[in-house]
Each structure stands twice: as C-alpha cells, then as structure tokens.
C-alpha cells in the first residue's frame, strides 16, 4: 500500500530522511516514534505529497510519487491526514468541516454528504456538536472532528501526526478510542505518536527513527521489551521514566 525504497530528503544542507526503506501492507497499522527532529513528521508528510522527496522511490496505492503521470490531487483524496494541531477550518461548523471536501472534491450531493457527515460525527461521539464551530469545542473534540473529516473522504490510508500531543491528558483517551475503532475496522494507518498504550493495543509494527533514519522496526512486544539499539533504549527510558 505504501512503499518507500531508498528515499532521501534534504532541507537545504540537512539530510532529514536518510535512505528510508519501508513498506506498509493494506490494513496494517504502523506506529512511528523517535526523538524530536528525527524526521517522523517529514516521513509521513511525504506520503501525501506535503513534502517532496529528492531521490528514491515512493509508491502509494500503486502510484509513484513525483511521476508526472500521477495525479496528486486525486491520490490525496485516497489519503486522510490528521494533524497535531487539528487544523479545522475555523470559519466552518463541525459538519461543514466534514462535508466540505466530499461536496467540492468528491462532488457528492450536499444532502447525501450531510447525511454521511452526521453519521461520522455520531461515530466519533459528537452527534450533539454538529453545528458547533471549532472554537466552541475542546481540543479532544476538535481532533475527533478532524478524524471524522478524514473519514468523510473514505480514504484508503490514514496518516496521523502526533494526534494527541496537543491535548490535555484527560482528552487523550477519547481521541485514542476513536483511533482504535478506526484501526479495528481495517484501515491502513501510519501513526506518529508516543502513546505506547495505543501502539501495544493496535499496531502491527513500531518503527523507531533517529536523525532521519529508521533505526529499528518490529512488533510492539519486541520493541518495548527488548529494544535492540542503544538509541531506542535511551529514548524508551526517557519517555517511560516518570
């Protein structure tokens, strides 16, 4: 479903992705973790073309990125992206946030889109917030709307970039619950997160990055119980210490 082969990326002189080779199968859930600045966000942003790569191949849903024959706008409709800072449209209600792209990009008739939108909002537990504006919602609620917004496009893949790290502690679980539900329905997911409980529960694989490279990769059990490298051990000890 997603296949990196020898991907490199530079920001100026900085080699932020080094020789990434990684493949994600359909219905697989992959958690990406690693220290700040290690390139996690960059990695998943490449997948839907928010960043462009310099060399190597990146094939998503059978289409090669950077290939002139690939219609990026089309491809993006197949990929949902959930941001750390939600990025809801502040001038639109929750429902409008969910229906905007289906109506304008997928060209679904408005009433159908709204019907579907209401169902999605109900699914993420926000049936009563349909007409609320983002500023009237708590962080956890906003992030759940953002997830519903992605689901509204019926994507084949969903990418999450630290979806809970901007949230108050008591709101984290409500978002993770929704993500677990999505994963259990069989969505292909790549999730940048430090929520190790989530990784344990639903991930088939944990990928540990450092300084732009994938340093380690394995099942959650392997990774948490027997980290193979010093760097992953140091990292785990830090985030699990207090």
């Amino acid at each position: 479903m997603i296949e990196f082969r020898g991907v490199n990326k530079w920001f100026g002189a900085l080699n932020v992705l080094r020789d990434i080779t990684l493949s994600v199968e359909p219905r697989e859930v992959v958690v990406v973790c690693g220290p700040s600045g290690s390139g996690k966000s960059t990695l998943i942003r490449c997948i839907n073309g928010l960043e462009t790569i310099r060399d190597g191949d990146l094939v998503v849903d059978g289409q090669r990125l950077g290939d002139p024959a690939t219609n990026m706008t089309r491809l993006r409709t197949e990929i949902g992206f959930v941001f750390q800072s939600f990025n809801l449209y502040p001038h639109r209600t929750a429902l409008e946030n969910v229906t905007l792209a289906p109506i304008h990009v997928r060209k679904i008739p408005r009433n159908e889109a709204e019907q579907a939108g209401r169902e999605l909002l109900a699914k993420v537990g926000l049936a009563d917030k349909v007409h609320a504006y983002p500023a009237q919602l708590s962080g956890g609620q906003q992030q759940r709307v953002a997830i519903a917004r992605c689901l509204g496009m019926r994507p084949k893949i969903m990418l999450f970039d630290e979806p809970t790290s901007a949230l108050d502690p008591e709101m984290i679980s409500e978002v993770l619950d929704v993500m677990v539900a999505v994963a259990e329905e069989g969505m292909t997911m790549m999730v940048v997160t430090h929520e190790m409980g989530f990784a344990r529960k639903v991930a088939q694989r944990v990928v540990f990055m450092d300084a732009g490279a994938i340093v380690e990769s394995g099942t959650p059990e392997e990774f948490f119980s027997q980290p193979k490298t010093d760097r992953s051990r140091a990292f785990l000890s830090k985030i699990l210490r207090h």
Partner: protein
Amino acid sequence: MLENFSFRTIVEYLPLFGQGLVTTVWLSALSFAGALAVGIVLAAMSLQRGWLFRVPAKAYIDAVRATPLLAQLYFLYFGLPHLGFVLPELVVGILALSLNSGAYVAEIIRAGILSIPRGQVEAGVASGMTYVQRMRLVILPQAFKVTIPPLLGQAIVLVKDSALLSLISVSELTRAGQLLASDRFMPAEGFITIAAFYLLLYYGLKGLAALSGRWLGLQPARSST
C-alpha cells in the same frame, strides 16, 4: 476669524455642503469598489511564485506608494488625453483613486492571506482540494476577516483623499467649503464645516468597522486548544 463666526451663513450654504457630501460619499464608494477590484488582482499577482506576475505587481505597488496622489491624478488627467482618451473628470478621478487605493488594498489583502496559518493550507491540500478550491473555500473566507479592519482604515484614507478631486473640478465636499471661502471670504466657516462632515464620515466608517468586527466575532475566529 472666530469671533465673527457665522453659523447663519453655514446654514445658508448647507444645501451645497449636502450635495458635496453626497458626491463625496458615492464617489468614494465607487472608488473603493474599484480599489478592491484592483487590490485583489494585484494581491493575487504578488502572491505568485513566478516573477512574471509578481514583479510587475510589486513595481506598481511601490510606484504608487512612493508618489503623491496629486502627481498620480495629474499624470492620468493630463496624460490620458495624450494617448487619445479624453475622459470626464469624474471618471478620471474615480480611476485615480481606485488605482491609488488599490495598491494599498493589495498590500492589506496580501498580508491577510499570509496571516492564515500554514496548517489551513495543508489541511486543504491533504483533502485533495485544488489551488482555486483552497483559495475560495479555506483561505479567502478567513483572510476576509483579518482584512476588514485595515480595509476600513484604507476607506477612511480614501474618503479624505477624494478631496483632491476638487483640483480637477469635481464638486465634492471640500469644494463646497472652498466656495464658501472664496465667495464670502469666510474660510473658517467653510473649513470647519467640512471638517465636521468628514469627521461624521470617519465615525460612520469606524462604527461600521466595529460593527463588522462584532458581527464577524460571532463566528469564533481561532481554533485553539
């Protein structure tokens, strides 16, 4: 000049001031509409990555900002006939005001668009919207709110600038004051009256700005944690 200040004469000239006020209002309104049109086009041009549109737009904006409206007005007024366009004063005046204010409006709109957080653009990109869809559905509606107060500020400037059109024989508000000054030799009466009227327009526009701010404020502006 003040001890003989004649309110009676002002009242006598009030119809003239009234006409001037009306002219100033509609001609400013028209010019501002023109300025918005010019400004949107220029802002769009100056936000392009390629130099082909960006450089001419910036050059135009800088040239307008660096020279006085008076020079621009005469440039059009005396220059257009050389190119074979003899246009009525009012048209030249409105054109000059639109082209002048348009440059400032362009800067305001550009700043408004750039003030939209990058995440908003990315959210649009990620859900497969085209450039035009992103602009129309995501960026412009948000930029609109940010730009309303400075745009009204520019409208205030434009209203006062329109006084310059009296130079090319448009009878607007300032002209009425000048008439009172030259027919009756009552400059204090003339000028203080027009100042009062301009102040009225200023507070009108300011009220509008506050109102629109409150109206826009009803829809929460920021999505925050």
